């Protein structure tokens, strides 16, 4: 992995100053914050980590393996107004919708999430350009930190990514010593941030070895193999049924996933005005494909599980040349029934014939 020639160093002790200078420069900062209120925990010490707007560096948890919800909510919120209208007597008038997102820095992304932006870009820009998504995307700078503590659910290396991957980031910070981060400046947005505090940065020397600082994440299963294999497995019902027997049909996996983009459109109105909302939806719900006639092309949870896997690993790659998975592991961590995607993919790869 080549480190770009414009790489710099910043002392860890100066990170707080960099943070403050970004805010002074007019950017709003959103980053991973660990929840502290009384909650149920799945693992000792593991309260959820959520994306929140912050005012100081020490509010952030930069060491959590992953955030609980993905950063897609900063570009594609769980609920969003896409149309506003007013009733005057019998007439309807559409009201203008302001779309002026503030300049934002996501401070504390992981490389897998930065990579997810490529897939989101592809879907929201496919022929019709979704300006709600694209305007937020244009106004956001991504500052990512190379992973130091992946867990067993991570499988980024199996889907073309890695803990030090630069794809999608504007700045990528690697902890190369006790006292310093290597900073790869990957875009003009990244340059603009560095320029806001240029004296905090020194040029990187050849001795700052990024590669040796990357955790090792074993590559399995092989995603390319899966994409080729899946079409032939479509009608093998028993595979999908067995893998999804314990699935409860909630929307958790789709909602925590950084690249799931399925949505519902719902009107909420009273006698004087209303809104059309775009809301997250999941192909795991029984209602997702239910026709008004009562017919449902995906009647069983097995058919819905198959859709999830096929969409991510077969349809998206074939149609838009992007994979529908970045190996972040959130779906497996969050699933209440412990349906583990990495495990399911391994099973598929191991099927003979």
């Amino acid at each position, binding site marked *: 992995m080549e480190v770009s020639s414009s790489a710099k160093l910043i002392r860890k002790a100066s990170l707080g100053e960099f943070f403050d200078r970004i805010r002074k420069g007019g950017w709003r900062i959103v980053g991973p914050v660990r929840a502290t209120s009384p909650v149920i925990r799945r693992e000792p010490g593991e309260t959820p980590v959520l994306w929140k707007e912050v005012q100081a560096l020490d509010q952030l948890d930069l060491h959590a393996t992953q955030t609980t919800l993905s950063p897609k909510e900063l570009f594609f919120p769980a609920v969003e107004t896409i149309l506003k209208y007013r009733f005057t007597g019998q007439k309807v008038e559409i009201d203008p919708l302001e779309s002026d997102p503030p300049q934002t820095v996501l401070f504390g992304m992981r490389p897998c999430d930065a990579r997810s932006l490529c897939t989101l870009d592809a879907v929201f820009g496919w022929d019709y350009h979704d300006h709600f998504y694209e305007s937020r995307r244009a106004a956001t700078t991504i500052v990512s930190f190379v992973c130091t503590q992946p867990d067993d659910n991570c499988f980024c290396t199996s889907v073309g990514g890695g803990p030090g991957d630069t794809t999608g980031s504007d700045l990528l910070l690697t902890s190369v010593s006790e006292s310093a981060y290597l900073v790869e400046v990957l875009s003009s947005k990244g340059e603009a941030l560095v320029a806001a505090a240029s004296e905090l940065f020194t040029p990187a020397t050849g001795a700052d070895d990024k590669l040796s600082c990357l955790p090792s994440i074993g590559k399995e299963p092989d995603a390319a193999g899966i994409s080729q294999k899946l079409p032939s497995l479509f009608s093998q019902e028993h595979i999908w049924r067995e893998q999804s027997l314990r699935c409860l049909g909630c929307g958790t996996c789709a909602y925590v996933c950084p690249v799931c983009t399925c949505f519902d*459109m719902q009107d909420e109105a009273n006698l004087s005005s209303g809104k059309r909302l775009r809301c997250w939806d999941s192909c795991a719900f029984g209602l997702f*494909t239910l026709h008004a006639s009562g017919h449902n092309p995906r009647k069983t949870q097995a058919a819905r599980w198959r859709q999830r896997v096929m969409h991510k690993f077969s349809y998206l790659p074939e149609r838009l040349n992007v994979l529908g998975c970045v190996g972040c592991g959130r779906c497996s961590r969050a699933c209440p029934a412990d349906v583990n995607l990495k495990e399911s993919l391994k099973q598929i790869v191991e099927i003979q014939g």
Partner: protein
Amino acid sequence: MTSKNIYEPYMMRIDQVVDEAPGIKTFRLLFEDQAVNDGFSFRAGQFGEYSVFGEGESTFCIASSPTRKGYIECTFRQVGRVTTALAALQEGDQVGFRGPYGNVFPIDEWEGKNLLFIAGGIALPPLRCVIWNALDWRDRFRDISIVYGARTVADLVYKRELKEWTDRGDVRVVTTVDPGGETPDWTGEVGFVPHVIEKLNPPSEDTVALVCGPPIMIKLTLPVLTRLGFQAGEMFTTLENRMKCGLGKCGRCNVGKYYVCKDGPVFSFEQLSQLPAEY
């Protein structure tokens, strides 16, 4: 900065409401904005998302021909929340329209051929756009036949137009109702559509067949057409699926890797044979 909001519909005014059959209506819609009206065009096969503000959107094909400017028409059955709200609207009321979306019938490739339209029940509307398009370009095609069936006489849609097509003299129209669905004065056929087609024995050479109907009708009609010599590449249909955005983003209308809203709704039966049988 205002970028185009791809989810914002055009404002339409209901110009005409026709009660086609129990629970089925046709709306003729005019664009409220003259500039939009002048710039609007579509091709036969495309669909739109029709809004009732406050209730939501519903997906219907554009049932009028693209050769007729200044309005669009849609025909729908009252079956859920939005269609019930639509059915309560009157002439002069407003609806929203987003579109045109989807692919088109390759009507340009059919010049010089015979056209055979086969439809059942509420599935005549998706073919009506092509029928009128073809009739408006009548001399580009050879024989045009329409075989249309419904459960009962009352369920036939476009009753007035069926008569208009029959009376033209340059179209062969065969209407049928299911056994037991005829009225005492019914002069059309009695029998299921596949049987009527067998009886009609249409030639398959240089003929394009457009088939649209409930799954059972299609399932039983295809073998008849195949026996008559129709190739899968010359038979077309238009699919329906649960839709929301209509433009390839909400992720719900796909059959295998094909999105009905982008790769369809028009498919040849050759293409369909490659899709997983998710229906």
